[in-house]
C-alpha cells in the first residue's frame, strides 16, 4: 500500500506543482475525507467545516510549491494546514461568540455524514487506553487548539510535562500506522 501510494503521491504532487487543475480532483478524492474528519472534529459544525475544507484545499493548491519532502510527509503536511486553519477558526473571536459546547467524541459522526471507517470506536478505545492525563493533554492540544504553554497553565503542570505527555500520546498513534 505504501509503495503504491508513494508512486501516485509523487505523480500527484508533480501534477499539482505544474498547476494541472485536474490533479486537484484526484487530490480531493484521495484526501478530502481525512482532512474533513480532522476539521470537523475541531470546529464541530458541518457548515463551518465545509468552509474550512474549501479554504484548506485552496491553500494546498496555492502553496504546493512550498512542499518539501525533506520536511515531512505529504499528507502530514496537508493535515497540518487543515489543523492550523481549524484551530485559527476556533480561537477566533467570531467563533467563540457562537460557541458550540458539544464534546468532539460524542459528536462523531454527526447525523447525515458517513465515516469511511466504522472504527470511530477503535479510536475512543485507543485513547481510553491512555491514562486520563495523556488523553486530556492530547485532546487539548490536538482537538481544542491549546498551545502547550496554555495547557501547562490550565492544568498547572510544567511545560516539559506537557511535551512528554504529547510525545507519549503521539507514540500511541503509531499503532494505527502499523495496522
Amino acid at each position, binding site marked *: 500500500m505504501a509503495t503504491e501510494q508513494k508512486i501516485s503521491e509523487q505523480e500527484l504532487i508533480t501534477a499539482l506543482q*505544474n*498547476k*494541472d*487543475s485536474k490533479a*486537484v*480532483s484526484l487530490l*480531493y478524492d484521495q484526501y*478530502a*475525507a*481525512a*482532512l*474533513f*474528519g*480532522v476539521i470537523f*472534529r475541531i470546529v464541530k459544525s458541518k457548515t463551518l*467545516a*465545509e468552509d474550512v*475544507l*474549501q479554504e484548506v*484545499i*485552496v491553500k494546498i*493548491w496555492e502553496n504546493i510549491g512550498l512542499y518539501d519532502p*525533506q*520536511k*515531512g*510527509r505529504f*499528507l*502530514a503536511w496537508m*493535515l*497540518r*494546514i487543515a*489543523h*492550523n486553519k481549524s484551530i485559527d477558526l476556533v480561537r477566533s473571536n467570531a467563533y467563540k461568540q457562537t460557541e458550540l459546547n458539544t464534546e468532539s467524541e460524542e459528536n*462523531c*459522526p454527526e447525523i447525515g*455524514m*458517513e*465515516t*469511511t*471507517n466504522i*472504527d*470511530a470506536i477503535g*479510536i475512543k478505545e485507543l485513547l481510553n487506553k491512555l491514562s486520563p492525563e495523556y488523553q486530556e493533554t492530547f485532546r487539548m*492540544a*490536538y482537538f481544542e487548539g491549546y*498551545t*502547550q504553554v496554555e495547557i501547562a497553565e490550565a492544568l498547572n503542570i510544567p511545560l516539559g510535562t506537557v*511535551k*512528554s505527555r*504529547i*510525545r507519549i500520546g*503521539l*507514540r*500511541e*498513534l*503509531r*499503532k*494505527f*500506522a502499523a*495496522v
Partner: protein
Amino acid sequence: MDIKAYIKTGILETYALGMTNEEETLEVETLLAQYPELRAELESIEMGLEAFALKQAILPPPSLKEAVLNKINGQEPTKKDAKKTTKLNYLPTVFLVILSLVLAVLAVWLYLQNNTAKNDIDQLKKEIRACEATQTSQKQLAENELTEKNKLITLLIQENTSKIVLVGTENHPDMKAIVYWNKDSKETFISGVGLPKPMPNQDYQLWAIVDGKPLNLGLVANIEPSILSQMKSVSEPQAFAITLEPKGGSVAPTLENMVTMGPV
C-alpha cells in the same frame, strides 16, 4: 549535535502537530535537512498522525467537491492556458513597445535631419544674398569705373586738353611723367608711367608753377603705368613739376628733390 536528546525534547511532535512557532520551525527544518535520524523519527510520528486522521475520516457532502474545484479553476487557469494567454498577451505588447521605440527613434532622426536641412537652406540663402550683393556692388563699381573712364577719354581727346611731358631733371634723367591739363575745365590728370617706386618714407608730389610760384596739386599716389589719376585743378599753370617729398607731402617743394618737369 545530540540527536537523541533533541528528539527527547518532543520538538518533533510539536512540529508534526503544526504547533511550532517560526523560530522553532526554522530550527527543525534546518536540522531535518542535515540529520537523516531526525527525518526518520519525524516520519514515524507523522505516519501515526496520518493513520489517526484516516481512521476518523468523514466524507464531506458530495456537492462540496464541485464548489472547491470551481473555486480553484476560477482562480487559476491550467498551465497550458496560462502559457497561451501569457504568450499571446506578451507578444503584442513587446511588438508595440519595439514599434514605439523604432518610431520614436525615427521621429527624432527625422526632426534632426529636418533641422539640418533647414539650416543648410538658410545658409545657402545667406550665401546667395551675399553673392548677389557682391555682384550688384561689383557691377556698380564696374559701371562707375566705366563711366569715369568714358568721361576721362572724352576729356582727353578734347582739343583743349594739353599733354605735357615731364622730363627727368639733371639728377633724375630717366624719370618721366605725363600730365594732361584741360584749358576749360581746369582739370589735371597725371600718369606716373616713368616714375620708379619711391622709398617707403617718401611720396611723389605734383606741383604747378603759377605766376612763378609752386602750387600743390596733390600726391601722386598711383604710379601704375596705365592709371590716370586726377589731381587738383589749376587755372593758369606755366609748368608742372614733381618732387620727392617725405611721406605725406610738404607745404613747399623741396627743389633739390625735383625729379621731373615740363612747361605748358
